[in-house]
């Protein structure tokens, strides 16, 4: 059995419709019109121990809602979640001991006391042995670069400093699974990079499972080998990062800088699966289809006719690929709504 097993998961939110106009508002005080919306709509997936999964989707697609159900603080409307064989909602406290959670918009620390006091309290609450605690504290203080922040009360920290302390806090008790809901929100590039390095390392060394939501695709790309894409509460894609790139990244652009461009104002550059996008006397820009050809073939062809000085290959990155998939999905949804 997988470490995390999600079956037919549904979460419905009930929302009071806020009517327009005074009379309608007054009416709604007594009998509010309630609409339900499916924030998570029949979601299924299974995650094995040691995986690092990127859970992505546009704003309001249901990512945070799913994470909340996974860590047991929100009761699913229907469907089931199993984490290590436990139902995280019913066995919440047991489950809590095994997981670490970072919400980008929430802090687990005590607002008025120095950060180190919060950490110490975690040690007691999670019953972390002194030796282990010391090791972890040292390790994550260094990784997150928070040594000078430990004696400062949380309310005096900046957003990014707070986040860094929270990330350190999530790892103190050696959790088996770590949920990160937009963990790099508000962080500078240096901190982002060190967090990514740290997560990759823990993931490899300790076989800790990670589920990460982020709108920063660099986070996802550098951390996750698997990507789950959710849109309007439904899973649109659940695949290996590499194969997503291959499957959806059929076309690439290649640009040559050269001494003299023999295909400028002369005969056209012809090669199977290649389209000329632009030429100048010193450069040539081509788009090619990965199914029909590859960059080596094109380079050889170009090298035959001219002296290449520089080459630049670019493809669509994962962000663009995802954006495209979502656009297509929204389109399908809209046209099926019309019918």
């Amino acid at each position: 059995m997988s470490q995390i097993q999600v079956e037919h998961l549904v979460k419905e939110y009930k929302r009071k419709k806020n009517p327009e106009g005074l009379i309608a508002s007054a009416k709604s005080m007594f009998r509010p019109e309630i609409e339900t919306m499916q924030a998570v709509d029949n979601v299924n997936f299974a995650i094995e121990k040691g995986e690092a999964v990127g859970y992505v989707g546009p704003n309001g697609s249901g990512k945070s809602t799913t994470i909340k159900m996974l860590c047991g603080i929100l009761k699913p409307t229907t469907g089931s979640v199993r984490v290590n064989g436990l139902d995280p909602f019913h066995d919440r406290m047991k489950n809590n001991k095994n997981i670490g959670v970072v919400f980008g918009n929430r802090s687990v620390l005590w607002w008025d006391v120095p950060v180190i006091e919060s950490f110490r309290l975690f040690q007691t609450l999670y019953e972390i042995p002194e030796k282990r605690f010391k090791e972890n504290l040292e390790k994550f203080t260094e990784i997150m670069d928070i040594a000078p922040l430990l004696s400062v009360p949380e309310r005096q920290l900046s957003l990014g400093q707070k986040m860094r302390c929270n990330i350190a806090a999530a790892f103190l008790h050696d959790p088996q699974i770590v949920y990160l809901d937009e963990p790099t929100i508000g962080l500078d590039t240096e901190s982002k990079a060190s967090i990514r390095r740290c997560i990759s390392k823990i993931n490899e060394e300790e076989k800790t499972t990670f589920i990460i939501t982020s709108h920063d695709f660099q986070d996802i790309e550098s951390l996750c080998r698997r990507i789950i894409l959710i849109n309007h509460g439904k899973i649109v894609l659940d695949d290996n990062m590499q194969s997503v790139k291959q499957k959806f990244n059929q076309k690439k652009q290649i640009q040559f800088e050269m001494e003299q461009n023999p295909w400028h104002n002369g005969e056209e550059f012809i090669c199977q699966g290649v389209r000329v996008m632009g030429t100048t006397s010193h450069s040539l820009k081509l788009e090619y289809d990965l199914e029909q050809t590859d960059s080596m073939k094109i380079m050889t062809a170009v090298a035959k006719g001219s002296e290449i000085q520089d080459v630049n290959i670019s493809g669509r990155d994962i962000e663009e690929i995802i954006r495209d998939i979502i656009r297509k999905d929204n389109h399908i949804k809209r046209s099926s709504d019309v019918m």
Partner: protein
Amino acid sequence: MKKMKELVRMTFLTKFAYMKAFWFNVLGTGASIVIYYFLWQFVFQKQNSLNGFTMVQMTTYVILSRILSSQFGGGINEELSQWIYEGKIGVELLRPISLFFTLFAKRMGEFLFFLLFKGVPISILCFLILGGTAPAGVLNFILFVLSIFISIVIMFFIEFMVGICAFYTYGYHGLMFTKSALLSILSGGIVPIFLFPKGLAAVLTYMPFAGMVSVPVNIYLGKYVLAESAKFMMLQIVWALVLCLAAHLFYGHVIKKVVVQGG
């Protein structure tokens, strides 16, 4: 136990961060004691005793009851409501201890802080300045302290349920105010319960609220014989258990519906 101790310590540290606000709170309680003292002095100008209370006893009642009921403005209900309202409840639910445990430790911390920095010093100060009676006996004093401790448990469960109500109202200032006012009146924190109409007084004596002010203070003053003291304290314990059960049922019902806001 160690967890409880550490959480209590945390509450102390948090409280220390707001010492200035706390001194104003102490000042307010002191002022209300003085006001009620003069009010009763006016009443006792025309008579020597009221329902068996002498002026000195009434002074004692005023000091103790004002101090005890000054706790009604605090409690954990405000924080719990805020957590639900702002969605921070999600984080609290992720701790490896139960919400009841977290909050009860907070409440104990608050009570001990209250005792140390307000209850004891202000009582002594007021007794010295306004004059009050010593407890009716050593046993009375012990039972008085014990009764106060039980009353914290009662208060805790009431506060817990009031706090949860924020889930239905999505606002909590009204709840806070109503709770504080009702408890002050019903517990005998403003006037002794015997001043209420006969029937109402009889009912109130047996309600859980009496256990917060009226019962301990009457024990202190020796208004109850030993058997009565024992009876009322048993009643306190029964109420504590009933409220504990009610709070757990209420919690079990609401937690399924709580929508952790934000994200």
